[in-house]
């Protein structure tokens, strides 16, 4: 079963000469209980894909689904409710509200919903994240890695159907990055969650069960059971194909 998918997804930005096709007919599914990485060169549409799949943005054409729900049919309010109940987010930075404590940040979506939190589950999460002694601290008192771990805990706290992470380790050194990635891995493999992660880093991608490659807004390849070397090789091949001019211009303009 796919936790989230997009079908014939097209997303264009701007109009006229400045028109950009960020997604150009992408069809991809993210299977439940799996850790999927999205890779591709800068500007290839990774973030756009993630935003559209998660209901943060709407597609120009095509459909996006979370479970059996078609997102295009939902209004702003329903999308918001969907995000807080069925989707988790981890961004590259600025994941936490500076005015709330660690504990409050973790349960924020449930508090916004006014539903109670599953204490046992949250305690277990906090245990896994390893920040039990920092619950009353403010984000500004944590390191970048710790902040990202709190963000992961927040994303998982509501047992969402799928967690989207956009370069969650982009701002971290390799050691803290490794901790966050291991955490995401445990969420999938030990706790049965679904994670979709955008990354530039082959080492990060190696934590995933599967990697999908984007280029110029198109799905160009997928790779199961990735290792850092295999991913790196694929990326290099991709770069060289680009250098030899097999790819088109980095940004495809629509000329009609």
């Amino acid at each position: 079963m796919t936790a989230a998918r997009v079908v014939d997804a097209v997303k264009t930005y701007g109009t006229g000469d400045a028109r950009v096709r960020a997604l150009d007919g992408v069809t991809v599914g993210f299977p439940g209980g799996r850790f999927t990485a999205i890779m591709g060169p800068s500007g290839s549409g990774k973030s756009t894909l993630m935003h559209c799949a998660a209901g943060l943005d709407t597609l120009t054409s095509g459909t996006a689904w979370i479970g059996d729900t078609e997102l295009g049919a939902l209004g702003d309010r329903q999308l918001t409710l969907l995000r807080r109940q069925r989707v988790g987010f981890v961004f590259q930075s600025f994941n936490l509200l500076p005015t709330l404590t660690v504990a409050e940040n973790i349960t924020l979506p449930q508090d916004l919903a006014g539903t109670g939190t599953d204490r046992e589950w949250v305690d277990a999460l906090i245990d896994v994240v390893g920040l039990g002694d920092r619950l009353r601290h403010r984000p500004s008192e944590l390191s970048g890695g710790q902040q990202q771990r709190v963000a992961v805990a927040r994303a998982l706290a509501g047992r969402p159907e799928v967690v989207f992470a956009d370069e969650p380790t982009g701002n971290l050194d390799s050691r803290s990055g490794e901790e966050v990635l291991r955490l995401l891995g445990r969420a999938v493999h030990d706790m049965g969650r679904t994670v979709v992660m955008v990354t530039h880093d082959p080492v990060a991608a190696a934590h995933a069960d599967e990697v999908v490659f984007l280029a110029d807004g198109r799905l160009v390849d997928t790779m199961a059971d990735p290792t850092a070397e295999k991913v790196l090789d694929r990326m290099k091949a991709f770069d060289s194909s680009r250098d030899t001019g097999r790819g088109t211009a980095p940004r495809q303009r629509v000329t009609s």
Partner: protein
Amino acid sequence: MSAPTGPARASLRLSLSSLRAHKRRFAGTFLAVFLGVAFLAGTMVMGDTLRASFDTLFANANSGTAVVVRSADVVTVPGEGQGTREPVDTALVTRLRSVPGVAAVAPAIEGAGQLVGRDGEPVGGQGPPTLAGNWIDDAGLNPYVLAEGRAPRTSGEAVVNRAAAEKGGLGLGDTTVLRTPDPLRVTIVGLVTFGGEDGMGQSTFTGLTRADAERRLMPAPGRASTIKVRADSGVGQEELARRVAGVVPHGVEAVTGQQAADENLDQVSGRFLSLFTTLLTVFAGIALLVATFSIHNTFAIVVAQRTRENALLRALGASRRQVLGSTLAEAVAVGLAASAAGLLGGIGIAAGLQALFPAVGFPFPEGELVVGATAMAVPLGVGLLVCAGSAVLPAVRAGRTAPLAALRETAVDHSGASRGRALLGAVLAAAGAAATVAGAAGTPQVWLTSAGAALVVVAFVVLGPVASSYAVRVLGAPLARLRGVTGALARRNALRSPKRTAATATALMIGVAVVSLFTVFGASLKATMDRTVDRSFAGDVAVTASGFGAGAGGLSPKLAPAVGRLPEVATAVGLGKGVAEVDGGGRQLTVTDPVALTRVLDLGAVDGSLSGLGRDGIAVSRQEADKHHWAPGSTMVLAFADGARRRFTVRAVYQEAGLGGDYIVTRTAWEPHKVQDSDALVAVAFKDGVAPDDGRAAVQEAARGYGNPEVQTRQEYAESAASGVDIMLTLVYALLALAVLIALLGIANTLTLSVHERTRELGLLRAVGQTRSQLRSMVRWESVLVAAFGTAGGLALGAFLGWALVKASDSAGTSAFAVPPGRLAVVLLVGLVAGVLAGWRPARRAARLDVLRAIAAE
């Protein structure tokens, strides 16, 4: 040293480009300065225009009068405008006619006459004077001009000014009553104008034949208030005045018409206009003070938000002075633009009022709008000063930005709530409160109270940031429980920067403080009047001339005896007013029957006896007696307006001044010095067993023949005495609305800036599932919390200062202090609702935010 033009221009360019980029941020500042300056400029232009119009009006109306002959002695009671002068003998007229250079002479009789309209209600009398006099046939000596009909010829004929006739529904040939205060039946034979207008301001004028006027308005025939003299062409006023002065007897003086007109003008512009414009200027000042806090806050936030930008500039080699200069230049530019716009707006307001006033029946004299240099320079300067002054501290802070700040993440600011500030604030507050209380309690020392009050205000401002943390925590506590995480977030946001919250709330606090100060003061004033009536009025009903102040016409002295003869009535006592000087200062005397008085007024403990005051006895209140060290048996001298100095023996000292006033004399004692006889109040006590309604009806019936004055129960009498307070309060509220509006603009502006600053946070909240309505309500609740803090602080401050004002202005120790809970609750409610309104737009803008853009924003 190199020419400063290069770098200076660079910093100017910086500030202009930043202004262009952040137009919205300064919209609030612009509006605050604009409103304050417009108010100030409007007031000044209107004042100048009114003054100029009155100037021409009086000059034109009195241009024919070269010399005015009048009694030299004048007794002025503090608080009453025109002094009282003894009338002059009209026998002088013939002697004046023979003075060379005199073209015409006419006695002028001026008194009070309350015209009764077609519906039986008095015309005017709610402040502006109701005048009556003799109709002077010499057009040069008469400021009024006959517009319709003819002059009064026989007794009982009268002319009235056109505005009064219209208001009373009276026309030519109609017969009505003029209370002088004895009712006089008059037939209107002519309508007159004054200086081309239908009347002199809101005052009413009735012109009678000379004989009627002498009989009704003068103590005896053959007297006139003044004698007016017109000069032959070619004879100067000064010259003629000198000649006339040579023939008048001792105690009579001759002044030029110019001087008399100037004195009259002073009366109008000095009392009414000055009071009016001073009042408006004070409120414009309050509005601008509130604006200062709002504007300071805006600049402080803008500078804080620009820390990185400024640090980058510093890192790139901009000097401190350039960074400071660019911020200041921004403030000056905003100030200049807003003040200029405000000046135009103010002129517009004045022009609008000039057009509007006549439409609502207030004749605003016609003429060009007078926009003097002062009226232009002062608002412009003040607006600029307010704007630049508010920006000085933030600009200095901007200049101090360390280049390294560009690299640091700006942490949450807690600087406001420092211990030093708390300590300083507490010391200031304690010292201020102590001084205020010391000055207000016991014998009032106004300067001590004022100094203390000023200190308390400063302490409130200093303590603001400290107090805001506590107050928001307390006020916001129920919010988290009621509104869940939305409420909790609102509370946290309000707590984030105590300094900012406090500065935002301070503007509102000052506005609300002034509102509650007046509310408390007004309520206390009413309570005092209530208590005065309650304590001192021992009768059943009171008969009063409607209206209050200088315009009230008074009651016929024959009314009290007439009412006294009714079978239902046990006692009816008239209280008249007299004036005399005691120790060089004018004092009001109560002229009455002292023995009967004790049956309807409670004078408290009396030392000595009120019976047998006779021709040379006087009763004095305890307070005045203590001041002058009098006791029963002491003697004192009263100097009357007619120049007579009489020795009086203090026969009684009574405890409660109240309605009886400070000095009581008999009618016999006052008789020789009276001008126009009238009673201000007739106090009536019924016989035992008379039903109040029956008694009242009987009194009303008896009063009908005396111009139908109002008959009121004790309660009604107390209420009508206090009705002026409500009118004053309404006016004050209307004027303060502007200050409160500016404070709310400040809150809205601060919120908008904060929302802008928190774009990423808001985006994150939306991403993890905050609905738009939750976000809106979060911003609005923050606004309400800030407003609640400001309102609560303002209420506390205002109530305390109100108490101090009541106590400090009460040397007699007779004032009541009252806190009206209902009204203050309304103020609190208005403050909270205003908070919701102030948060409306920022909340909507925040909710419209695009989630993705917010996440992407740097």
